[in-house]
């Protein structure tokens, strides 16, 4: 009997060894994979438990915060800047660009991280403070009205983006429930019109053509040009002005103010493709703009070499041009700061969970587009356009505002897209602004008044 009992003991011992092996298999060998397996609810729990950091506007007002593991939004108008954070649909905007800091995976000192992991305390994320002024953005939202479009305001001295409004917007906190409607809506609310929207720029592009013509010495602002009939023919194609200039001959500065397609078509042909492309590229077109948010690259023309008529239409803003409001704002900003293109940014500062500053964005330049002299001439020409030309609706009492309107063909049968790009004050510019209203008609009537309302407030807000 003794030996049998001993063998029973051996059986149990072996069985416990087998069970220990099985425990080791599941916990040590398969453990790391099981811990992060998609079906393991702990993956989601860890994300939920983590206190994701807030996103603040430039004044420290919270735009997005975390409450009980959910994102809450103060306002939908900054949706495209903050972006959304969803377990199902991923991340966009700042939620994507600064995810590591917001989630607390980065920006935590090694010792604090070790203590946190040992104690099992939930991750706390850092803070991202934006350059966006949410009150100014709200002004822009009201001014733009209930249309699709975008408003960008840049502090030209730094490149800080003060307003980046894209409409229609949505509540990013409810993206999971709203998703079917958002993703299939033909108005494409998920997409950030400011940096991802690509539009024909219309007459606003004449600034680039003018910059090339002045900078290469082809023309001066005082050079006399003529456009007596409001139309011309190039290679059999008829080119017309939207509105015939009031005088048959005038100087080049008035050609911009009155937005003469006829003059700019001829200027484009004289400049030639190479110089036009060169200057567009100097302003940043054709490459990826370095920016925290998603951007789409703009382009001058896919066709190379361009035909004369394509070159002519490109010069006054049609052709195959694809322009984003952000890129257009950089054109304005470059003119405002003596030809130097600023690098745009929306993140002012990133802070650790403790509040200590982790990184502060330093202003930078993307390169030089024109000489300071050319930029000064362009500023005066933009001022003229607001004082005497189509940009009159953008005038702000007591401040010299420079600007250029644009009316761009959209879809056949629908109203045009309406553009305005402006700078203020002309003498010592602080701000560059771009307004884009989709399918709304004439730039002078639609976009320019919006710019005025925003500039009025922005000039007070940004000393």
């Amino acid at each position, binding site marked *: *009997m003794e030996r049998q*009992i001993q063998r*029973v*003991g051996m059986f149990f011992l072996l069985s416990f060894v087998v069970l220990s092996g099985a425990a080791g298999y599941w*916990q040590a060998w*398969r453990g790391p994979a*099981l*811990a992060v397996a998609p*079906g393991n*609810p702990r993956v989601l729990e860890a994300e939920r438990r983590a206190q994701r950091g807030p996103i603040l506007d430039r004044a420290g007002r919270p735009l997005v915060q975390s409450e009980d593991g959910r994102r809450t939004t103060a306002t939908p108008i900054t949706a495209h800047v903050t972006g959304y954070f969803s377990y199902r649909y991923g991340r966009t905007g700042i939620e994507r660009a600064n995810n590591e800091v917001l989630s607390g995976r980065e920006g935590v000192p090694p010792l604090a991280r070790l203590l946190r992991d040992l104690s099992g305390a939930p991750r706390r994320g850092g803070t991202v403070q934006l350059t966006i002024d949410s009150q100014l953005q709200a002004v822009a939202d009201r001014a733009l009205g209930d249309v699709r479009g975008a408003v960008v305001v840049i502090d030209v001295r730094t490149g800080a983006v003060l307003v980046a409004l894209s409409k229609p917007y949505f509540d990013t906190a409810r993206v999971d429930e709203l998703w079917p409607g958002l993703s299939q809506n033909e108005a494409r609310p998920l997409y950030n019109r400011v940096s991802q929207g690509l539009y024909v720029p219309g007459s606003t592009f004449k600034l680039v053509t003018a910059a090339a013509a002045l900078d290469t010495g082809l023309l001066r602002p005082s050079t006399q040009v003529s456009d007596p009939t409001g139309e011309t023919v190039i290679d059999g194609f008829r080119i017309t002005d939207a509105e015939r200039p009031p005088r048959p001959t005038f100087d080049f500065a008035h050609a911009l103010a009155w937005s003469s397609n006829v003059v700019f078509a001829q200027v484009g042909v004289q400049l030639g493709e190479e110089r036009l492309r060169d200057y567009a590229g100097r302003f940043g077109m054709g490459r990826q703009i370095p920016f925290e948010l998603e951007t789409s690259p703009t382009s001058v023309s896919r066709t190379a070499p361009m035909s004369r008529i394509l070159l002519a239409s490109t010069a006054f803003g049609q052709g195959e041009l694809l322009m984003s409001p952000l890129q257009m704002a950089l054109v304005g900003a470059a003119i405002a700061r003596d030809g130097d293109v600023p690098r745009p940014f929306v993140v002012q500062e990133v802070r650790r969970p403790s509040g200590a500053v982790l990184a502060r964005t330093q202003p930078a330049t993307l390169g030089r587009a024109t000489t300071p002299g050319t930029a000064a001439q362009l500023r005066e020409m933009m001022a003229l356009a607001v004082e005497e030309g189509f940009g009159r609706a953008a005038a702000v009492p007591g401040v010299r505002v420079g600007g250029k309107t644009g009316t761009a063909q959209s879809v056949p049968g629908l109203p045009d897209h309406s553009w305005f790009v402006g700078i203020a004050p002309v003498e010592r510019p602080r701000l560059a602004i771009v307004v884009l209203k989709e399918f709304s008609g004439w730039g002078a009537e639609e976009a320019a008044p919006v710019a005025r309302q925003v500039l009025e407030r922005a000039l007070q807000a940004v000393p």
Partner: protein
Amino acid sequence: MGTLTPARPAAGAGGVAPRTRWVSSPEGGRAARPVWRWRELGLVLIVLVPLLSGTVLLSAVWGRSLADPRFWPLYGFSALLPLCHFVLLARRFRGSQVLLPLVGSLAGIGLLLITRLAPTLSARQLIWALSGCVVMLAVAVGPWETRLLERYKYTYAAAGIALVALTLVFGIDPNGSGMRLWLGTPALSFQPSEILKVLLVVFFAGYLVDKRELLKAKQLHWGPLRLPPLPYLAPLLAMWGLSLLLLIWQRDLGAALLFFGVFLIMLYVAVGRAWYVLAGVALFLAGGAICYLFFAHVRLRVELWLNPWVDPLGRSYQIAQALYAAGSGGLWGVGLGQGYPLYVPAVYTDFPFMALAEEGGLASALALLLLYALLVGCGLQIALRARLPFDRLLATGLTAVLGLQTLVIVGGNLKVIPLTGVTLPFVSYGGSSLLANFLIVGILLRLSHEEAARPLALPAASP
């Protein structure tokens, strides 16, 4: 070894057995110096360390005061253990000093886990543990004799069969497990199979001691096989039938496996022929195969066992979640109170091992297995030290119940064998199971005490 068979006074042979004086009348030795149990006291105090530090940990993680009512059951149990020690001391108990600390640590871990997993149930579990300890102490030091177990073996067998019959007819399913394995009212019910396992072991021990010589000696030669006389095969077949009945009618695979396995172990120890074990295993496998072929629920169990990832959100949700839990625990665990074991359905009855594996890691899982291995070792040691065959067989059988039940449930948890619904001894939530297991430990303590108290000079006459 079957040769060591001490003579035992014939039951009811008129003369009082010499050892009964030692057992049931401890006052006889009161003049002697007290039997200190320093080892037991030391071990009990050591057991309290993890129990109370676990309580402190939970209070820290939950942010609740240590005086919170939900921790009271743990304090109650911490007082209960030393109390048990002093009762044994006062009753001049001379048996194993390791058994009480072992089951105390297991029941303590169980109570800690239940406090963590289902705080509302811990008070009930403490009451059951308290009742269990009373039963254990009454059996260990109360005025009775183990001979009574041997003498009335058929009564116990009848009682056991009556229990099974009652459950078959009147069984209820108070907690919606889909199996009618309980007797009583939904408010107060007990699981007869828990009592049945003790009754069956007592009966087997008595029966096999009676018949072992016959089972061993007479053999029918049938080709190369040596069969025992057919009437004596009856218990084997009857037990097989009972197991299959449990399996088919009650769908209680765990109990079937447990009863049959314990029976085989006892048969092997009594008769000493491995042949019986092999035949028994073959019978069980054959029965299992037949069930697999003819019963959908058995087939489902096996299929989910072979591939739990085939339907992890549906039928295999429980086992998949349990494996996620264990895997997430890794080597050292996520910390008590800091994991998500409650994703595993019925975790505190069916998967406490996996909850410990998640929060305490592989280290704790192996430690728990070690405790069970020590418990089995301790029980088998008591069996080896016992000199009477009935005592030996009884101790082996009772130990095998605890050991096999642990193997079956932990093996099921770790996907080594198909999952069954038996409880993890002393750890799972459940009153019937706790009571029955404390009863088993009480009998083991009694056996070790009787052995220690028996005069060494007892003649060991060989037949």
